């Protein structure tokens, strides 16, 4: 079966700055891949590239069969992926339920999927009627996660998903990710919670200086070790 993500020497520019300076990465269907590396290494850019939000300047990038060099294909890819970024894209003025309904319906999710996502993230009941502006950071993350879940993405791109979540929230996130993978989805995540993320991931890829090949990819390890 063809890999879900195929990157070969992928270069992505932010303005003139090559945030990604040659990424070689293949992710098979059903895999959970952890990206790690120092701040500014290019993890966020890599996830945004895989979401079809950024063009490739050089090299090859094919995600879910969409060639990212082609604008049109990159755009149609976006419906099939879910990106949980630093920013959540939620509307402060609306309630939790409103937000999930809006983003869910925008992606063409059915009402039952939307309700299911709400319940799965523990947002049914009182929380659903609260305005997003009144939520804590962790509750916002949960709401964003529910928006993602309602879309039923085939490729999950999670940028620091554990940040801001409490213990229950992290357990919930891990459960949701495992369930998604069990039902056929593929996951790429970046995290500084290396212990937790490494336990979740099948494989760890190290990114430094916008490249994957500068340091050898490590096998899953409990301790973060940097090997030149």
């Amino acid at each position, binding site marked *: 079966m063809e890999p879900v993500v195929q990157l070969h020497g992928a270069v992505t520019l932010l303005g003139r700055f090559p945030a990604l300076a040659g990424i070689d990465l293949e992710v098979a269907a059903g895999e959970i891949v952890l990206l790690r590396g120092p701040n500014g290494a290019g993890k966020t850019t890599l996830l945004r590239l895989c979401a079809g939000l950024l063009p490739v300047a050089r090299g090859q990038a094919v995600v879910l069969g969409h060639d990212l060099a082609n604008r049109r294909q990159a755009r149609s890819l*976006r419906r099939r992926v879910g990106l949980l970024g630093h*920013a959540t894209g939620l509307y*402060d*003025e609306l309630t939790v339920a409103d937000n999930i309904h*809006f983003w869910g319906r925008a*992606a063409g999710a059915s009402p039952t999927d939307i309700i299911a996502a709400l319940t799965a993230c523990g947002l049914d009941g009182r929380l659903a009627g609260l305005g997003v502006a009144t939520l804590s950071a962790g509750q916002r993350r949960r709401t964003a996660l529910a928006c993602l879940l309602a879309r039923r993405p085939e490729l999950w791109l999670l940028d620091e998903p554990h940040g801001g979540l409490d213990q229950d929230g992290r357990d919930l996130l891990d459960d949701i990710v495992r369930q998604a993978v069990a039902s056929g989805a593929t996951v790429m995540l970046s995290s500084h919670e290396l212990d937790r993320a490494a336990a979740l991931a099948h494989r760890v890829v190290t990114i430094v200086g916008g490249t994957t090949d500068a340091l050898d990819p490590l096998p899953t390890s409990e301790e973060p070790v940097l090997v030149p």
Partner: protein
Amino acid sequence: MFRDASLMAGKDLRVELRSHVTTQQVAPFAILMLILFGVALDPDRGILTRASAGLFWVSVLFCSLLAIQRAFTIEAADGGRDALRLSGLDPAGIFLGKAAAIFVQLGALELVLAAGVVVMYGTEITGLPLLVATCLAATAGLAAAGTLYGVLAAGLRVRETLLPILLLPVLAPVLIGATRAFEAALGGAAADGWPWCGLLAAFALLYTAFGTLAFGPLLEES
């Protein structure tokens, strides 16, 4: 496209219903402007009544700036641009939806302003069909051009100051056309006003068509 537009418009109007920015801030501002015009131009000499068409539309123009800024402040918050690009919504639908929401809000504001002009400036309403048609055409033009220039300025640090200088010269024809049409209607010479109404409709159509096409690239590449 139209499904996405109605979803977007519904969301924007729901945000307005929850936040009351138009009703509690923009509408009072509109009335305040009418009062300030009244204070600045001597109310006893009939200037206000004669100039009511122009003053009405200048007020609408400034209110539309606020409404457009507001429409894109909502989206700018918390990474909205990426979220919109990933949402699966058709950019043309987003444009039409946002323009429709602005259209509805401006329409409501115009009703408030019209009431204010009648009460405070003693303007007598005549030629109602032309007035209504002018309002519809002019507001559609304001909403379409405003949404296009709004997304242009959105996301820039200086958007509050940049938007007026980009948008107001573009809207000058709307001000001219709508004011002339209103003067014709209020002056009992409705026949003179209909060509202006046609000009406004053409402006609205042009900007709606262009905005529908240009919104996608703008959302993608800015």
